């Protein structure tokens, strides 16, 4: 009983933090990308523009909640919910730190520690694809449908190299559980032993979250916003939040698997984790400001013809060195 209450409290705290973090990530993105383009980001709302996400949130809440004619009501309403749910779910298993003492209770800084760990995260992030193509289909708009199908194809084809890259780390550490993968990195981080996996995972992470340079499904110039064209107000806010929470999720997995999770000097539980995630998120923003987007055919052939063989060879080599 007390266990469920503990889980409930941790989940609520985590959701609050994630929503706030995703909102402020939109602000950081605008400021960082603006500075890289020699302009200022938003700096009018509140001191240094810090209330900007609040203003954005209020704006989106006050918008009309509409449904296009001919759109299937259930599908249309369900799609953003599925996307947001799967994005948030990835954080259930991620360890923010070891156990800490809070008011006499020993609290572990993760919500769950299942035997299959990373497999559950990958499975649920595969479900995120449902949100995307249900949005495209339920909008009753051919461009949204096309955008949704392209996004779906992109996401499912990049899941394979991503999973194989993570599999090499699993092979190297011998366990699927995330807290133990972090513990195995006490001597050295896995990025030094599996650099190629890191690169493959990085590229696949960009593609999974539909982020530049793989952001064709949601590029404004090419597809009029793709699968979330027909969404406005709160439903659009949910897609928006889900995208940024997805970025945080893949960054968190990246930090957990390759950068030693929450380990650092003095092993302060949450601080190092947040610092590392901040650096990875900055990398996401930096790449978005730098690179032109891939054409869709190039994107798909890159996944199947280059990343997949590379990740398979990587897996074979890692397994050879571990087992032999």
């Amino acid at each position, binding site marked *: 009983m007390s266990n469920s209450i503990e889980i409930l409290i941790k989940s609520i705290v985590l959701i609050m933090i994630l929503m706030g973090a995703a909102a402020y990530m939109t602000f950081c993105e605008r400021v*960082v990308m*603006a*500075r*890289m*383009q*020699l*302009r*200022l980001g938003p700096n009018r709302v509140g001191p240094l523009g810090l209330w900007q996400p609040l203003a954005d949130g209020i704006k989106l809440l006050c918008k009309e909640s509409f449904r296009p004619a001919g759109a299937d009501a259930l599908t249309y309403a369900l799609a953003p919910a599925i996307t947001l749910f799967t994005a948030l779910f990835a954080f259930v298993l991620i360890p923010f730190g070891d156990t800490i003492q809070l008011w006499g209770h020993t609290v572990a800084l993760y919500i769950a520690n299942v035997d299959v760990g990373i497999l559950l995260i990958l499975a649920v992030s595969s479900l995120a694809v449902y949100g995307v193509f249900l949005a495209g289909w339920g909008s009753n708009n051919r461009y949204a449908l096309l955008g949704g199908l392209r996004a779906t194809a992109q996401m499912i084809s990049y899941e394979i190299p991503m999973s194989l890259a993570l599999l090499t780390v699993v092979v190297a550490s011998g366990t699927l559980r995330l807290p133990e993968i972090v513990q195995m990195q006490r001597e050295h981080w896995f990025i030094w032993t599996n650099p190629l996996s890191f690169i493959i995972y990085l590229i696949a992470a960009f593609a999974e979250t539909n982020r530049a340079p793989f952001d064709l499904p949601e590029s404004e110039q090419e597809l009029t916003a793709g699968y979330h064209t027909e969404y406005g107000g709160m439903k659009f806010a949910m897609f928006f939040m889900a995208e940024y929470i997805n970025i945080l999720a893949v960054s968190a997995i990246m930090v957990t698997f390759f950068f030693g999770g929450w380990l650092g000097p003095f092993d302060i539980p949450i601080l190092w984790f947040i610092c590392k995630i901040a650096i990875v998120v900055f990398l996401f923003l*930096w*790449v978005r*400001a*730098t*690179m032109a987007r891939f054409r869709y055919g190039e994107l798909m052939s890159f996944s199947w013809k280059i990343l997949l063989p590379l990740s398979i060879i990587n897996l074979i080599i890692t397994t050879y060195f571990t087992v032999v």
Partner: protein
Amino acid sequence: MMHGLLIVLKHAFKRPVTLQYPEERKILPARSRGRHYLTKWDDGLERCVGCELCAIVCPAQAIYVKPAANEPDDVHSHGERYAADFQINMLRCIYCGYCEEACPTGAIVLSNEYELSAQSREELIFTKEILTEKNPGDSGRDPKREI
């Protein structure tokens, strides 16, 4: 690709080129064409003699001039006529400066004030009161000049 990333990062530390209007305003060149002024001679008389050349040359037909004769006891300008009514529709005006070029006395000039917002279309039909400078030299031009 790394080189490209480093170039972008270098830009992140340069000073942004944004001008934070309205706290910072751009200094325009002295001969930028903005708001019109009807100037006066050094002795306070209006330069405008009501010849209507500006209204004739204006490509947008934005100027309306109604001339009247200078009475002996009611002198407005150095010539025989003066402009009794002078209106410019700032919404029609294209700020080309032809009126300034056409004026034989150098009465109408274009300053470089460009902030001309108003709450209604009627407010942007500038009458002679709004256009005339209060004291000679207010518009920034030398009142002792010939044209």
